[in-house]
């Protein structure tokens, strides 16, 4: 294997869950503010494991053992159309009409064994600039734990 030089495109991440993961630049997303509670992790690989479509994972480059399962929020709730705060588009380098991916983080509630989607704190990614952020929706009807089904 070629030495892992800084700046090479196919940087390799090692994860016990996923094994070795190629991390080409085009599949990396920069989160300037990290995710809430994980502010120190600002680079993520978008990993789509086989057989889990449409679930993907945001794998932290600095610590690949940390990975967040994500699902397009529109698949979780058909009428999902949150009003994004005004600071989001400039932060992601997106113009008013640029498309943004809105994703929900998935959680398993062990007490009930149920799978949930967080529609109150969605992750928004601008694929064109490969920048992302987690958005906090105040005064919103969407649930922090939208029930998807039994896990």
């Amino acid at each position: 294997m070629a030495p892992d030089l800084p700046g090479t495109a196919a940087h390799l991440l090692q994860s016990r869950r996923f094994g070795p993961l190629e991390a080409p630049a085009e599949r990396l997303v920069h989160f300037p503010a990290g995710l809430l509670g994980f502010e120190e992790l600002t680079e993520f690989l978008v990993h789509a494991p086989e057989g889990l479509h449409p679930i993907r994972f945001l794998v932290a480059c600095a610590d690949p053992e940390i990975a967040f399962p994500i699902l397009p929020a529109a698949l979780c709730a058909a009428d999902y159309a949150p009003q994004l705060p005004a600071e989001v588009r400039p932060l992601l380098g997106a113009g008013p009409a640029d498309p943004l991916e809105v994703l929900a983080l998935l959680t398993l509630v062990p007490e009930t064994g149920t799978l949930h989607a967080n529609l109150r704190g969605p992750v928004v990614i601008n694929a064109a600039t490969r920048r992302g952020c987690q958005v906090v929706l105040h005064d919103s009807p969407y649930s922090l734990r939208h029930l998807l089904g039994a896990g």
Partner: protein
Amino acid sequence: MLVLSRRPGERLLIGEAVEVTILAVRGDQVSLGVSAPRDVPIHREELLERIRRENRRAARLNGSGEQSSDFTNPYRPLPYQRQPVPTG
């Protein structure tokens, strides 16, 4: 922590761009008005904490079905989980 006493109608300035006005005090509730530039996010702290907690849960959800480390074990008790979290 800086502690200040203010009356309804009085203001606080934080830096040059953030202005907090005490609008009303009723019983144990204070109404605040906050003026800040559009790029300054303003959050209710308790919602941030709930999202942090959900993020920690999400990080523990294991895509492979293995529970190869404590961090990925969704059944590991959460250290900060002292009471049931209301849904909503």
